[in-house]
């Protein structure tokens, strides 16, 4: 069983779904949804079957490795394989898409093409699954850029009034990052050529190279810029609110919950493991930017008047936590970050979807147009609250172990920064609860009268599944952290950061105090 090309299959299933949708006669256009849902469920099944085969803490760093020759002249192979971090993110991609499809059943406005909407979503899923499992840097780069195409089309063709501005901005921002990364990629290839004799793009070979530190710094920055734009890290975040607000809720989920994770994933997989010395050099600067993201994102979220933009800015804040955890280089913080990536995927998905359902009923993204939703649609309001609570990292829901581990782990490395980050605990309560207060409490006013109705059974199914997953992960995070931790350990060993084990011995405690 273990020798099956699982990852290849997991990516090919949605692709097959796309092909089926593409050849579907226009008469049966609405069947596209069922095909999409079915193929995403099959994908989920494949990924679950694969995950059960994964041996935690196995001797091999990467598992389910399949490799095909592609461009031998440049040492490019089509190699797929996952470590613990890759596995949980592939699982996230597989879990999220069925719910997104279910929730965006009627997202396509009359006149839009249902076929291409659902087809593009599946293409995006394929690319995302492969991008998380690529073990060839060239393949990764190609897929990293290829993600933009379906995403651009999804935003540009199916979004709100300002969609073409948002889509173009998103595309140009990402292309700029990708271009710099391409330059770094070529540099990496040349470096491997000088060090090994023949150039290669194979990740496992490259991740044991000792590139000289000056070049490492440049290459690191090239990769990091692309990932920081994708993640998004302050001050490179401004494409996100526009893109997420103008896209349909389903697209926004795929964008923020899945695609943006490629940024933080890339930092762990590529920045840290290919350029360990440079990672250490820049860690503090990046942590500062992450702290700014955390506080700034939260504050700007409080000031938003548009629901979707508000949720986008909360993501900026949460990505700050993830990046802080990655660059604190402790076992707890980095595992927490990866866990937070998954948790944030679910909680943001819930938030965007439930906000989308509300907007579909109220036909307005303006928070001030809503009031008293609870009175009219208690279930909808309840889901707004639960999704929000996950956003503010309430214990018992998925985000909490992530945020908590990041804070505890980062404190070991950067005590002052971790304490500043705790301010977000208060700010997140303000932006979520104030949103809920304005939207759900009080008496129904504005657009919340007339035809504004309760959510349907299909929507309840999608949301309650995500909520169940969030509660499950919040109560038993071990299911993921057990898988993530071994990978994080090898990553930190590769980075060569000083292990910061807490200590009970008194004089060492005192030393730590005097250092502060």
């Amino acid at each position, binding site marked *: 069983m273990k020798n099956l090309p699982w990852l290849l299959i997991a990516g090919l299933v949605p692709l097959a779904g796309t092909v089926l949708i593409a050849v579907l006669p226009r008469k049966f256009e609405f069947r596209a949804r069922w095909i999409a849902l079915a193929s995403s469920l099959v994908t989920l099944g494949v990924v679950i079957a694969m995950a059960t085969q994964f041996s935690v803490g196995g001797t091999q760093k990467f598992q389910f490795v399949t490799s095909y020759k592609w461009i031998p002249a440049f040492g490019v192979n089509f190699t797929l394989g996952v470590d613990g971090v890759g596995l949980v993110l592939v699982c996230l991609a597989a879990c999220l898409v069925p719910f997104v499809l279910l929730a965006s059943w009627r997202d396509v406005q009359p006149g839009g093409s249902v076929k291409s909407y659902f087809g593009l979503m599946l293409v995006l899923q394929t690319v995302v699954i492969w991008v998380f499992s690529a073990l060839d840097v060239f393949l990764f780069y190609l897929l990293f850029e290829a993600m933009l195409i379906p995403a651009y089309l999804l935003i540009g063709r199916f979004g709100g009034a300002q969609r073409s501005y948002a889509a173009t*901005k998103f595309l*140009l*921002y990402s292309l700029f990052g990708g271009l710099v990364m391409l330059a770094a990629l070529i540099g990496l290839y040349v470096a491997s050529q000088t060090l090994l004799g023949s150039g290669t793009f194979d990740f496992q070979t490259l991740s044991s190279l000792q590139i000289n530190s000056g070049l490492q710094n440049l290459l690191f920055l090239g990769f990091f810029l692309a990932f920081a734009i994708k993640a998004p890290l302050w*001050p490179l*975040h*401004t494409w996100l609110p526009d893109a997420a607000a103008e896209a349909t809720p389903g697209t926004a989920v795929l964008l923020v919950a899945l695609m943006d994770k490629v940024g933080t994933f890339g930092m762990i997989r590529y920045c840290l493991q290919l350029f360990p010395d440079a990672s250490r050099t820049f860690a503090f600067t990046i942590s500062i930017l992450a702290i700014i993201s955390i506080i*700034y994102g939260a*504050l*700007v979220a*409080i*000031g*938003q008047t548009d629901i979707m933009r508000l949720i986008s800015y909360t993501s900026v804040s949460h990505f700050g936590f993830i990046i802080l955890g990655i660059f604190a280089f402790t*076992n*707890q913080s980095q595992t*927490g970050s990866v866990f937070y990536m998954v948790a944030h995927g679910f909680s943001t998905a819930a938030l965007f979807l439930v906000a989308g359902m509300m907007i579909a009923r109220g036909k307005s993204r303006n928070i001030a147009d809503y009031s*008293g939703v*609870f*009175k009219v649609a208690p279930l909808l309001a309840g889901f707004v609250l639960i999704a929000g*609570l996950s956003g503010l990292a*309430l*214990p*018992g829901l998925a985000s*909490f*172990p992530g945020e*908590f*581990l990041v*804070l*505890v*782990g980062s*404190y*070991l490395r950067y005590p002052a920064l*971790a*304490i500043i980050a*705790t*301010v977000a*605990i*208060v700010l997140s*309560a*303000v932006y979520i*609860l*104030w949103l*809920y*207060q304005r939207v759900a*409490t*009080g*008496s129904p006013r504005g657009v919340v009268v007339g035809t504004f109705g309760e959510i349907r059974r299909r929507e309840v199914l999608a949301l309650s599944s995500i909520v169940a997953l969030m509660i499950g992960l919040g*109560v*038993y*995070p*071990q299911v993921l*952290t057990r898988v993530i*931790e071994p990978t994080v350990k090898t990553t930190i060993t590769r980075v060569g950061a000083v292990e910061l*084990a*807490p*200590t*009970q011995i*008194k004089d060492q*405690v005192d030393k*730590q*105090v005097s250092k502060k």
Partner: protein
Amino acid sequence: METIAAASGITSLTWLLIALPVAGALILLGSGRRTNAFGHLLGVATIAGSFVVAVLLWLNMLGKSSDQRATRDFLFTWMSLGRFKVDVALQLDQLSMAFVLLITGVGLLIHIYAVGYMHGDDGRRRFFGYLNLFVASMLLLVLADSFALLYVGWEGVGLASYLLIGYYQTRESAGPAAKKAFVVNRVGDIGMSVAIMVMFAAFGTVTFQGVFAAAPSASTGIVTAIGFALLLAACGKSAQFPLQSWLLDAMEGPTPVSALIHAATMVTAGVYLIARSNPIFEVAPNAQMGVIVVGVITLLAGGIIASAKDDIKKALAGSTMSAIGFMMLAVGLGKSGYVYAIAFLLAHGFFKAGLFLGAGSVMHGMNDQVNMRRFGALRSVMAITTLTFGLGYLAIIGIPPLAGYFTKDVIIESAMARNPIIGTAAVIGAGLTAFYMSRIFFMTFIGPKRWTQDVHPHESPVVMTAPMVILAIGSVASGYLLMRNQTLQRWLEPVTGFTEPDGALRPLVLTGITLAVVALGIIAAVVLFLRRPIPETAPSKVSVLVSAARRDLYGDAFNEAVFMRPGQWLTRSLVWVDNRVIDGAVNGVAAGLGGLSARVRRTQTGYTRSYSLVMLSGALLVIVLLWIVRL
């Protein structure tokens, strides 16, 4: 330090204490309208089940010798990363047991009462779901075996209070009040997070056992930092200065909620936290002093605020602030205070729940009015409520031999032994308590009728009065039962330790002084509110102190001026910066490139021959360059 055995036999059922109300909450909140008909009964049943389990565990514990009583019920590992290991494990020792009995016992009575109080409310099922969640979170808080798991219960309590304070969702004032409670609590949670981070960094563990074992040998700086962080957390949850402002607004919730928040759950959590962390505070005298200062400020401020409120629930809320201030003061006193703090906390659980339920009963009869200026003479129509409220009133002001006398006096004694200034403040606090509680009692039950036209007060149904009667009995007897033969002291000693306060004044003299001050407070209230007619609208020409107290001693004004307005300004300006500066830079680059390309486009003349000229010159240029390079 006592040993903690792994749970076995009946103690391995400790998890049921929490699981029952959690199940209740999940069923009630998840099932929708299907359970509307019997939801409230299910809610009561789960708490009753918990209470029964608690009593069984207590009886079991009584049968063991005092150093064998603590057990730990391991359920599963929550997080385990390197040395960071958090188990979901319930530690049941004497301190937790006392809280569990209080929470489930008083909680049960409040649940029963709520069946009557919420009769006819559309959302009764939902309400009971929230109540169950509240009790479950509080139980988790007191049963956790580590600071991290305690944090979960801690936040759960915050969430449940948020849901319950904002229960009347369509009321415009409920939403902001609930949000305020949660946000202020979260300010306290910063303290909790920081404490946990420091603990892990310093000791490599966050379990009670591990931290308390390491604390004595840690540097003063570390334990003081942890102590102050925990104090911040306790201030948030227990509504202590400077995070007291949410408590008065929390009266937006239905009255049973107020009773639950003030008596059995929530505000007692801070006291529990500090009592639980006693090994840390024992080695951090500065942090202990901080606790005392916070307690003293709050007990005085609470008393002053309570004396000026016309809203019966807000007056009682001020009273809670003051009472919790007493408890904080007591836990700040160290080993000579923990036991007394818990004793007062337990007794307070009875009489404060009784008082709130009494207030709810009054509101029930008075069309939900809360303005005491329009009450008066209710003793004629609400005999049981008057009696139970009266007993609670006498108990809280410390009239012997009721509960307050036994439990508050020892705190004053202990405070006086520590420092005369602290002791005097506590005596003044006792006098204030006597004054404002008498005021409440006189304005509500005695004096002439000042009712509005449309009210027809009546006694509440048995389902409401029965819990009030039981609580009244508790208010009378609990103090004696707890303090007789040092019952509670011997019970808690293995956990918190105990030293006899050693004061200069003889206890009897001090009791005499205290009682005199209390009598003074009552007399002042009699003169001001019984002998003189009470105007139906609050007089506007009042002293500076009264107008300050009416505005909660400017707590809200301060928060608004210092945090809210600058915060709003900051967010507004950051939004502007984000849109104009950061995004403006991005869009500016785009616009610049657009402009540049418009210039460059002019070179495209459309004449074929000019293109070919450019091509030719380009080719020549290349040739020349190649030639130069060759040279």
